[in-house]
């Protein structure tokens, strides 16, 4: 449900909402992605506005779908969180070579401070390594404007562009005054084999073309003033981007500030011009010293934050003041809040109690159920990345002594299984451990952790309309898994325990689908199903 009127002239909206509105105004023809905090609401809002938005099984597929649309001269968006870009990076690193015919923007949301992520990686490194132009908005208005500019760059230079968001920009609300979008593009196919078939004979010249585009883009970045200079004292100059701009203005209202909008390629001449009359220049940025290192590489001398303290976590006004004062002491210890926990009545409580009772070694995965690693359950032994539970479980099985190997179980959620678990099953049947292996899909019938998104296994699309429903048991049979069982771990808890115990005792491959819906999503799931049934009945008449 929309909490604001998209037709208003002044609105208080989040960065994610501002992006969705800008996508609407820029007449984006296809938007796709995979849910991931803090990026999830962008596609949901775009869909609410009537835009064509869809969830893909994972970020790589999403990026490929969006790239295909951009090859067809359309305007496309792909959204993901920072770690999603690792999955999709294979696409990015060569899509910059090929370029695009329409416009393509990758909205990638970083999570400084790890509010809801397994690491704190900095997407700016990917942008440089993949040679992909990048913008960094600082608030909702900036997000609204920069998406439009990102498309202008993408279409002018025929290249994918990254719009790097961070948790605070995605989820903070600030005022947006819409300024209008872009004319619609007309999709059409024009054959261009040498640009789009990246065999060495074509990709070698493409690599050189790409570097030339970057030179042109740097000139464009300087000439188009994508940077903002706030005039202030010459005693202190601050170079910054994204949300840190606002922290810096508040922390040092007297300072001169250079706010970089397009941070790759950097506008070297703008930076040189800014620093030349400043007594002291400090770079204010979160996470990696990315700006500082790249500015220094231009031969420009700047101060950076004290890395052992300030590389970690988000910045805020007080931390920026400490950086400017050259402090190196640890941050004051904050009082710890209550950590998140599995909801009352969550089906994962039941499943993980059983893993604990059977003394399983649990190779885990990413979702709400990762919370079962924390007390009082402490029933997950490893979690690294999407889909890793199956591969890691197999590795354990291959090398552990048989009596220990038989305790190993891979536990993965339904959405995560669709995202990256299927190839794990293929591996399991291909390189079968001597003791066999057991995979449990803890199927709560929704992508719960990110706020109840649909996926191919729910049989409903992003807007909850019906579509083909992926059948996990058929997949398991087709990949060569010996035993496939579906059981409700809440209603038939003892049966689940028996099935699991038996599977662990055999030298066979088993997939157990532990199916019980998310307690928070149940009401919505029933309502969506009912609406779809009614719509189908109406159509039959």
């Amino acid at each position, binding site marked *: 449900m929309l*909490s604001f009127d998209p037709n208003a002239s002044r609105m*208080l909206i989040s960065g994610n909402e501002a992006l969705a509105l800008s996508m609407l105004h820029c007449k984006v023809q296809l938007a796709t992605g995979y849910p991931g*905090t*803090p990026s999830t609401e962008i596609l949901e809002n775009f869909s609410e506005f009537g835009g064509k938005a869809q969830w893909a099984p994972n970020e790589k597929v999403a990026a490929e779908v969006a790239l295909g649309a951009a090859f067809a001269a359309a305007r496309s968006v792909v959204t993901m969180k920072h770690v999603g870009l690792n999955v999709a990076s294979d696409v990015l690193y060569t899509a910059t070579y090929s370029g695009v015919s329409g416009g393509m923007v990758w909205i990638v949301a970083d999570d400084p401070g790890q*509010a*809801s992520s397994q690491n704190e990686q900095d997407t700016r490194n990917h942008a440089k390594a993949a040679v992909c132009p990048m913008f960094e908005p600082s*608030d909702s208005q900036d997000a609204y404007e920069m998406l439009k500019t990102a498309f202008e760059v993408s279409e002018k230079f025929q290249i994918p562009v990254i719009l790097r968001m961070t*948790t*605070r920009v995605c*989820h*903070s*609300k*600030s*005022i947006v005054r819409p300024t209008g979008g872009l004319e619609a593009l007309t999709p059409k196919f024009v054959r261009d084999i040498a640009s789009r078939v990246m065999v060495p004979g074509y990709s070698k010249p493409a690599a050189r073309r790409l570097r030339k585009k970057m030179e042109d883009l740097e000139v464009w970045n300087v000439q188009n003033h994508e940077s903002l200079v706030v005039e202030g004292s010459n005693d202190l100059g601050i170079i910054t981007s994204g*949300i840190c701009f*606002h*922290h810096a*203005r*508040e922390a040092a209202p007297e300072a001169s500030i250079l706010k970089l909008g397009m941070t790759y390629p950097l506008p070297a001449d703008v930076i040189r011009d800014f620093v030349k009359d400043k007594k002291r220049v400090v770079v204010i940025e979160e996470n990696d010293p990315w700006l500082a290192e790249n500015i220094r590489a231009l031969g420009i001398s700047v101060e950076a934050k004290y890395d052992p303290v300030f590389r970690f976590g988000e910045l*805020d*006004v*007080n931390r920026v003041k400490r950086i400017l004062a050259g402090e190196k002491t640890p941050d004051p210890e*904050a*009082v*710890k*809040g*209550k*950590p*998140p*926990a*599995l*909801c009352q009545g969550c089906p994962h409580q039941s499943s993980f109690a059983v893993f604990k009772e059977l003394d399983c070694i649990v190779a885990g995965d990413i979702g*709400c159920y990762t*919370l079962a690693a924390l007390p009082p359950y402490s029933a997950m032994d490893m979690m690294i990345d999407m889909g890793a539970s199956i591969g890691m479980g197999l590795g354990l099985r291959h090398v552990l002594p048989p009596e220990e190997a038989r305790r190993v179980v891979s536990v993965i959620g339904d959405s995560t299984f669709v995202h990256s678990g299927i190839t794990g099953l293929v591996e399991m049947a291909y390189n079968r451990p001597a003791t066999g292996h057991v995979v449990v899909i803890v199927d709560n019938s929704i992508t719960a*952790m*990110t*706020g109840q998104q649909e996926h191919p296994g729910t049989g409903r699309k992003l807007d909850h309309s019906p579509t083909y429903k992926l059948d996990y048991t058929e997949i398991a049979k087709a990949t060569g898994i010996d035993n496939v069982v579906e059981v409700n771990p809440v209603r038939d808890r003892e049966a689940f325990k028996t099935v699991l115990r038996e599977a662990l005792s055999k030298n066979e491959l088993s997939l157990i689908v532990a199916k019980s819906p998310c307690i928070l999503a149940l009401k919505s799931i029933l309502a969506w199903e009912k609406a779809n049934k009614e719509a189908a009945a109406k159509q039959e008449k």
Partner: protein
Amino acid sequence: METMNVKFAGLGGTGVLKASDIFAEVVFNLGYDVKKAEVHGMSQRGGSIASDVRYGNRVESPMIPDGTADYLIVFAEDQIPVNQAALKPGGILLTPKDIDLAKLPNEKALNVAMLGKLSTYFDFPLDLWESVLKKLFNEKFHETNAQAFKLGRS
């Protein structure tokens, strides 16, 4: 005017974010520059949460720097120590103890009662509070909310 800082805090699922949405909408309607910061995601699952609302002529950072909150509204007593550092010296702390809980029409309406209490510190028009409460809540809660808001003000 100086930027005003109002922080809402408590546990996920108890109406903290909703209360901050309502307050932000009220000051937005008064024409101020407004920023609001919160973190969703894992913290939804019953963990500690907080939402910052800042308003004034021009607001920079969306996050309230520690030691500068003019108002701190905490919805669960055990969350006071977690958020105390936000409050400025002489800032106002509001907790469920400020509400006559026995008279609360529904325990879920605590957030609206707390807003009622908060409203007594500002001279914003009452009908603005009422219209925003109606706009941001489903109609079936309007009556309960009206009672809870009045209780907070009493």
